[in-house]
């Protein structure tokens, strides 16, 4: 800009100022309105949207899809278009040039005019860049997979409940449902090993949370305790191990007081009530069977993760559960602790279940009634079969029993 242009600018500006308003109160008044509106917006967002809950950082969980703050998304997205060996062009050269141009814009733009009609090219370039940034951001939001809903345990009670579920899956096969230990049966490599109880006072008073965490994370491999942490070849991220520790501490350590809400028993059956998969069976299975009957374990391919799986998987899928027939359902026979022999070879095909010790009588009865009622899945289906109906047909059923085959 030459002197003449500068003077012209000052003249114009002086005129504009004279026609203008006072900073206080005219301008400040507008500023305050906008700031106040933003303030309300921020409070509203903080109160009603809040900050998303995230699990604790887990350096070993490298499956996590990194998500930068949204205003960096466009840069991440941009990098995807740059081939690997030219990475530095996308990470350094282009952003660097962009920043330098922006910073020195007043010197690079020699056009003395300020009205938009006289700066069309400049405005168009800026417009395209802004569009590009917005476009890349949108593209990135659309293409990154949704954050998986992780069950975040907030309260102690939630942690204990989730910890118990995890314990039931990963630990019961060896340590038994209540950590009581004893002889291991039906687990590859540890057959016949006697485990000390881990729910005892000795254990709880001499192992800190951190020790328990490390035992679960790293295992005690010389003794046969497998590593469970993702960092050591197991399946559990750190926050899940923490939940198991919380469960153990609050359930087995008499010094810790377990919150009321954390005690979730398996609902007992009342007289004449038909059990359903949803309310009863799935709970028993979760505590006593799932640890072995999940993929990757030795179990005759019998998975018990869902209603469908329970009825359709297993080497003896057609015989495991036969509606109304207790004497021939393998599942019931194994609970009676009978060995089932292979008809062809006469060797034991299925041992007693759960292998190491009896299932509580009330749960065995639950399985019996469930199979007698034809394996209702939902609570509603079971309710339809419950008390009144059962009592009405009771006399008839004795009749059917004496006529086994027509």
């Amino acid at each position, binding site marked *: 800009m030459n002197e003449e242009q500068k003077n012209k600018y000052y003249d114009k500006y002086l005129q504009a100022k004279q026609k*203008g308003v006072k*900073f206080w109160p005219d301008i400040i008044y507008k500023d305050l309105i906008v700031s106040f509106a*933003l303030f309300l917006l921020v409070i509203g967002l903080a109160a009603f949207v809040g900050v998303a809950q995230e699990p604790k*950082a887990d350096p070993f969980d490298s499956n996590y899809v990194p998500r930068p703050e949204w205003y*960096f998304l466009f840069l991440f997205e941009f990098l995807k278009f740059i081939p690997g060996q030219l990475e530095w062009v996308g990470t350094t050269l282009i952003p660097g040039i962009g920043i330098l141009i922006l910073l020195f814009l*007043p010197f690079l733009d020699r056009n003395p005019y300020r*009205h938009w009609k006289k700066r069309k090219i400049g405005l168009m370039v800026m417009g395209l860049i802004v569009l590009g940034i917005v476009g890349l951001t949108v593209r990135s939001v659309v293409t990154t997979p949704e954050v998986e809903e992780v069950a975040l345990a907030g309260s102690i009670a939630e942690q204990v409940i989730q910890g118990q579920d995890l314990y039931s899956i990963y630990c019961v096969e060896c340590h038994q449902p209540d950590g009581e230990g004893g002889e291991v049966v039906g687990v590859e490599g540890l057959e016949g090993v006697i485990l000390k109880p881990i729910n005892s006072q000795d254990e709880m008073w001499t192992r800190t949370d951190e020790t328990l965490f490390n035992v679960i994370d790293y295992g005690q491999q010389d003794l046969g305790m497998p590593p469970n942490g993702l960092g050591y070849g197991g399946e559990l991220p750190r926050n899940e191990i923490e939940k198991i520790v919380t469960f153990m501490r609050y359930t087995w350590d008499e010094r810790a007081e377990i919150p009321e809400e954390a005690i979730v028993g398996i609902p007992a059956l009342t007289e004449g009530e038909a059990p359903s998969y949803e309310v009863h069976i799935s709970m028993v299975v979760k505590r006593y069977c799932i640890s072995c009957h999940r993929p990757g374990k030795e179990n005759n391919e019998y998975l018990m993760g869902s209603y469908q799986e329970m009825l359709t998987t297993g080497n003896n899928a057609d015989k495991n559960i036969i509606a109304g027939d207790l004497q021939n359902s393998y599942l019931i026979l194994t609970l009676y602790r009978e060995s089932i022999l292979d008809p062809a070879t006469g060797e034991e095909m299925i041992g007693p279940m759960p292998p190491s010790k009896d299932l509580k009588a009330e749960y065995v009865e639950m399985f019996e009634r469930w199979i007698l009622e034809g394996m209702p899945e939902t609570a509603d289906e079971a309710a339809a079969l419950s008390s009144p109906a059962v009592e009405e047909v009771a006399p008839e059923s004795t009749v059917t029993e004496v006529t086994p085959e027509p």
Partner: protein
Amino acid sequence: MAGKVFAWFDERLGLEAFYSTVLDRKIPKVNWWFTLGSASLFLCVIQALTGVFLTMYYVPSPAVAYDSIQYITKGVAFGWLVRGIHHWSATLLVITLFLHMLRTFFYGAYKFPREMTWMTGVLLFLLTLGMGLTGYLLPWNQRSYWATTVATEIFGTVPFLGDFLFKVLRGGTDLSALTLARFFSAHIWILPAGVVLLLGVHMVLIVKLGISNIPGEDE
């Protein structure tokens, strides 16, 4: 009495002079887009106030950072609100800054004599993004951990300096307690110091030069 007190302070602080140079000055008539700068300033102040509150409970160590944030949101009275405000006002700040920049660009306000206002503005924008980047790691959750892993890797790809930058940012080769300490220090001391400094210059320039007018067709 009140008049006397005012006169006492005025004699020493020059309140009248402040009033006449800063508050009681003439400004060209402008539109609502010109409020974005002060809106950004307002959000900056909110960030500072809520940030100070958060540091009272936040502990920058990998072992407890996450739990201290949990404590802020669950244990401290209104902690969740303060944290929410800090989070959302940071988000809005980036938006208002971006729009503020676009408006000064659109009206050519970066031209003579406001070149320095613009340049300090650009630096302020970069510092604000830096605040976002460093603040993101502090909750030490999955999201922050992995985003920072990638972000620091990106700095590592800078030719020649990459390795150096990478190690300086992380405090070693791994994302560790040192990284967290560094990011925390940058987030609450280094970057804010830069912001305050540049903001001071930005503001003095604005008062000195006056807000630009909306250019007429011949300007």
